[in-house]
């Protein structure tokens, strides 16, 4: 019979309290990743502080400047709301066109095409992402806009009763709709590439479960691939939307801007990034504050879009397939 141990050993002399040797590496790595995470927040905070302080004179001229109102309108909201409208309309056109096309291409690559076709198609899509936006802008301005002029005429004749297609169709084609189409082409590779990766990750087990129940290829996709990829599709669309909202060069080149109008096919409208890019070099004082404040609005819109996306993704988490 052995003696029962009831007293714990002094922890200092116990082997289990000794360091196992590579703990310092752990600490360094933990510190690095913590630092990287903190850095992002610090940068974000500085950007936000810069935007807010610089835009204060435009937001409340009587309090923060020696002028009674901003220089280009009676007050800031009269100035910025049309710009917000133009930005959102252009981005939504882009999302509306790009999302179904991107999902279709991604599905084709991941589930329909034989491998010898899907790989080159994937490369071509990735190449689209490598084209600089100024090139897209030039293409939109010189080629696409002229090509779309007859289309706009037709849209106006047939669908003119809808406010979006009323108004005189532009003779140059350099309208908000053309900008939206160019933006759609630009965000297409982002959405496609992400969706393709997510579609490919659908567990084979679930796909086979659907097929073994007698599902056709398309039914299998609706039953397993789409539900599995739902959160990922939303995230990729939001990333695309983020790029569309912030895109400057392409819109600046394509759009012949002007006052806000609901009509997508006449000249007019302007987006926030394009407005800033066109005017910032010559702006100073109050005008500069106006432009920064417009940038602040864009920042808030993007933030809101991302939060809404996150909320949608988190809803029904129980059924997400992640467990």
């Amino acid at each position, binding site marked *: 019979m052995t003696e029962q141990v009831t007293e714990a050993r002094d922890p200092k002399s116990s082997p289990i309290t000794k360091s196992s040797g590579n703990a310092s590496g752990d600490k360094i790595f933990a510190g690095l990743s913590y630092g990287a995470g903190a850095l992002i927040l610090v940068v974000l905070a500085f950007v936000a502080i810069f935007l807010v302080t610089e835009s204060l004179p435009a937001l409340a001229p009587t309090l923060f400047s020696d002028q009674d109102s901003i220089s280009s309108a009676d007050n800031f909201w009269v100035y910025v709301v049309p710009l917000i409208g133009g930005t959102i309309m252009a981005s939504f056109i882009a999302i509306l066109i790009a999302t179904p096309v991107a999902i279709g291409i991604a599905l084709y690559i991941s589930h329909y095409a034989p491998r010898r076709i899907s790989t080159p198609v994937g490369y071509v899509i990735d190449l689209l992402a490598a084209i600089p936006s100024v090139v897209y802008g030039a293409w939109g301005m010189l080629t696409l806009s002229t090509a779309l002029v007859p289309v706009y005429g037709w849209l106006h004749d047939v669908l003119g009763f809808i406010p979006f297609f009323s108004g005189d169709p532009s003779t140059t084609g350099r309208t908000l709709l053309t900008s939206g189409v160019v933006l759609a082409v630009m965000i297409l590779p982002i959405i496609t590439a992400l969706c393709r990766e997510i579609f490919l990750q659908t567990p084979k087990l679930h796909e086979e*479960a*659907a097929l073994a129940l007698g599902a056709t290829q398309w039914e299998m996709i609706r039953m397993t691939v789409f539900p599995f990829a739902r959160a990922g599709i939303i995230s990729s669309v939001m990333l695309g939307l983020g790029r569309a909202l912030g895109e400057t060069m392409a819109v600046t080149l394509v759009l012949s801007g002007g006052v806000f109008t609901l009509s997508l096919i006449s000249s007019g409208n302007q987006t926030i990034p394009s407005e800033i890019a066109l005017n910032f070099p010559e702006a100073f004082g109050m005008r500069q504050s106006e432009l920064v404040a417009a940038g602040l609005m864009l920042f808030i819109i993007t933030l809101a879009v991302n939060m809404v996306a996150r909320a949608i993704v988190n809803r029904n988490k129980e059924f*997400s397939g992640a467990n």
Partner: protein
Amino acid sequence: MAKRIDAVDLNVYYGSFLAVQDVNIRIEPRAVTAFIGPSGCGKTTFLRTINRMHEVLPGAYADGKILLDGDNIYDAGVDPVTIRAEVGMVFQRPNPFPTMSIRENVLAGYKLNGTRLSKSDADAILEKSLRGANLWNEVKDRLDKPGSGLSGGQQQRLCIARTVAVEPSVILMDEPCSALDPISTLAVEDLINQLKEDYTVVIVTHNMQQAARVADKTAFFNIQGTGQPGQLIEYADTKTIFQNPENEQTLNYISGRFG
């Protein structure tokens, strides 16, 4: 409902690789038939040809005939989708649809054929299938919870309920208990014994005791070496296979001398 299966000169290929060679077998309806054999001997591959699931893999195809009550499922005009609705399958790892509730999982097959079920019909099918899978009492209070929240054994029985809900004539099971604990295994084995009253049940298993417990007839598959095709070595009543096998390979396998 239950249908007889005949394989006639069946060869199964992955690309140019012959995986299973010259299988001729008659699988009786309303009985449990077990496939046993060492890993890689082609038993799962052969099982998957019975509902044309193997051709889901790129390059895989089968040559020969599989007759379902006399109808060749490899005839040119046959749609594999029809076959799969007729020949249900339960997989090695439980695979309920994670985005669906227990209820939706069981009724998934009906959603596919586009059958519009009234609420009362749907409820009746739901209860019947879950009772048929010995799962009703455990889940009846949480039918709208996700199927992936159940234990492994319950998930596997949910998958069986999903398969029997569409009333197939054959149920194929690919090592249905290999991911389950002994208690859940027992529950699934009991269920297999009930299922054979209405269905043709074919089960692949690595567990010889399981084959001895549940199967009426047993088929032994083997390969002669790596890269060689799998072959059906011996097929007889389970009792004969385990007590008095004709073939020496079978004897060596069941007595634990290899595999």
